[in-house]
């Protein structure tokens, strides 16, 4: 068996919080990422899911070596890249690329699409002028844009098209790993579906691996092979996609699932764990989630649970960090009976059939 493409262990990033400039005084430390371990196999999509402020984007930046970690190691293709510097680091960047959340802020408004797509090729010294231009045309085709789009500027495109340009730019140097940082959160639902489908097609065609960052578990269901749920800098549950959606063990995972709006007016909105995510500057003692957890007991307030293999069921590869994981009642999934009404389902099936034919 070959080594995983990406192997992260004990990764941590602590940001000091200081007051004053000259005689600065340390007020505390934000543990944005606090001991995170996971792997991404070749050809696999691992989704990192959690609310704003849980540390998922910081984790992505650490993996890409855009910021230095406080502790832990990152191995890419079997090689330790945690302390890589200079030319070696630059060459590594060709193999790992990123797609950003905001397609409006992440494209230079003064560059044409051709220039945007050519830039990573120039930076990495890939091909001559003619080859690069051929590659630009190829990339546009890959993401479903036309070759005449090459001469246009970002402002001439809609949000969904801009995100396609961002995807093409990430694919330009032929990376092995693509970090997708909330690539569809800023898009309309209908455009989200287009981009989610495109990412799936590209992964199969180009044999890519994704680290997919998201806050919406419903989107994740359609892209991920495995899912890791993060809360306040730590992974609280990790499992294969089918396992985590069929039998979520951590109360936080259940909260995220219950919060998804369902397109069925006959269902009552689910009650959702209330309250904001606590400040990472001063996280609650014990299990970080106990302040919002309906199942919390005294032990949860004092003792921090570790991520351990979940017992029972077909829990191979299912890890959960919860003192009560074994004794919680089976999750009552709010979406259990939620098939669409027969008329809607029939017409949607027809819609699917016609759009395949088209």
């Amino acid at each position, binding site marked *: 068996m070959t080594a995983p493409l990406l192997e992260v262990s004990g990764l941590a990033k602590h940001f000091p919080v200081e007051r004053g400039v000259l005689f600065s005084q340390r007020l505390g430390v934000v543990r944005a990422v606090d001991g995170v371990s996971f792997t991404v196999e070749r050809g696999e999509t691992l989704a990192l899911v959690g609310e704003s402020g849980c540390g998922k984007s910081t984790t992505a930046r650490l993996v890409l070596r855009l910021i230095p970690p406080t502790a832990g190691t990152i191995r890419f293709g079997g090689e330790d890249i945690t302390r890589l510097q200079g030319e070696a680091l630059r060459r590594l960047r060709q193999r790992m690329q990123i797609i950003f959340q905001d397609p409006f802020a992440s494209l230079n408004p003064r560059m044409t699409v051709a220039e945007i797509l050519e830039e990573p090729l120039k930076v990495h010294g890939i091909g001559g002028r003619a080859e690069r231009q051929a590659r630009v045309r190829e990339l546009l085709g890959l993401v479903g844009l036309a070759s005449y789009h090459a001469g246009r500027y970002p402002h001439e495109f*809609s949000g969904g098209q801009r995100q396609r340009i961002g995807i093409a730019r990430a694919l330009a140097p032929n990376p092995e790993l693509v970090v997708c940082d909330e690539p569809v959160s800023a898009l309309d639902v209908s455009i989200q579906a287009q981009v989610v489908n495109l990412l799936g097609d590209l992964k199969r065609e180009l044999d890519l691996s994704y680290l997919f960052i998201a806050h919406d578990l419903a989107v994740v269901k359609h892209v991920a092979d495995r899912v890791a749920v993060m809360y306040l800098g730590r992974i609280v549950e990790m499992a294969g996609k089918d396992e985590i959606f069929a039998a979520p063990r951590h109360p936080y995972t259940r909260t995220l699932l219950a919060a998804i709006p369902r397109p069925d007016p006959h269902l009552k909105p689910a009650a959702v764990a209330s309250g904001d995510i606590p400040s990472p500057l001063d996280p609650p003692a014990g299990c970080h989630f106990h302040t919002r957890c309906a199942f919390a007991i005294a032990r949860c307030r004092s003792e921090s649970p570790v991520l351990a293999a979940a017992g029972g069921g077909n829990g191979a590869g299912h890890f959960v960090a919860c003192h009560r994981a074994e004794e919680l009642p089976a999750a009552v999934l709010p979406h259990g009976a939620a098939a669409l009404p027969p008329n809607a389902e029939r017409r949607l099936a027809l819609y699917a059939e016609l759009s395949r034919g088209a």
Partner: protein
Amino acid sequence: MTELLRIEGLRTVFRQKMGEVPAVDGVDLAVERGETLGIVGESGCGKSVLSLSIMRLVAAPGRIAAGRVLFEGNDLLGLPAAAMRAIRGNRIAMIFQEPMTSLNPAHSVGRQIMEAMRAHDRSLGARALRARAVEALARVRIPAPERRLHEYPHQLSGGMRQRVMIAMALACRPDLLIADEPTTALDVTVQAEILALLGDLQRETGMAIILITHDLGVVAETADRVAVMYAGRIVEQGPVGALFDDPQHPYTLGLLGSIPRLEQTRERLLAIDGAVPPPFALPSGCRFHPRCVFAHEACAETDPKLARVGADAGHRVACLRAPLEQFVSRAA
């Protein structure tokens, strides 16, 4: 139920190089007291311009070219500016998508709430204002409201900021709240909380809500009636039950199919190809026909009108191919 707002033939145009182009093009709608009307569509379909038109907040080069907006029977479009100001924020209030940009970063939350209150009631003294601001924050379930008064927008989370916006909007106890994508920038958990809060407040105060969103899932959980908008027009409308049980317009179906669903095993999502046409390049006939998988030749020529469809008397659709049953039976 009595009718609170009625919109008739509303047309809002924007002046461009090639002449005036319509962003809202002949919209008829009604909102009853105490109900929630969901308006659904993609970016660029005209739903935000529609809500700004109700408030008479359309800025140049845009203008309202035709139609009436009847609020309790009075046409808002004919009111003098001062009379409109007395309604805006007082009887009809509005909240926006991005709570960070809607709040002033240089002033404390309390000062901003009190400023809005004083604008509508000059007789209030400092102490009374403060008490009402605390009450307004408490009403949107913000913990320790006295302390929050002194905080600045950057000190609050996205959900708390949206609560502050709602507190400001509801300070004058409006009869109608227009919520323009109020939860789009928020986490799903926070979205669920804000939607539940809006529902609770509606039950407490009896206000009507116009909820504008691109997500049919949000509409299903909150709205009593739904209007689906495309390229400046309403293409389907009806009670929420009828619309979801018996969706008729191909665009409604496309929006429904785009929602990633947990119980769905299909790997590929149904997507609507292409994008909303810009108002200066509207297709002939049915404006949706270039993106429609059900379209045939007539759709490019004839502009369909809203007409009754299905079992429910309030359910209307603008589609030449409706009911799509003719295809359903063939496929079955």
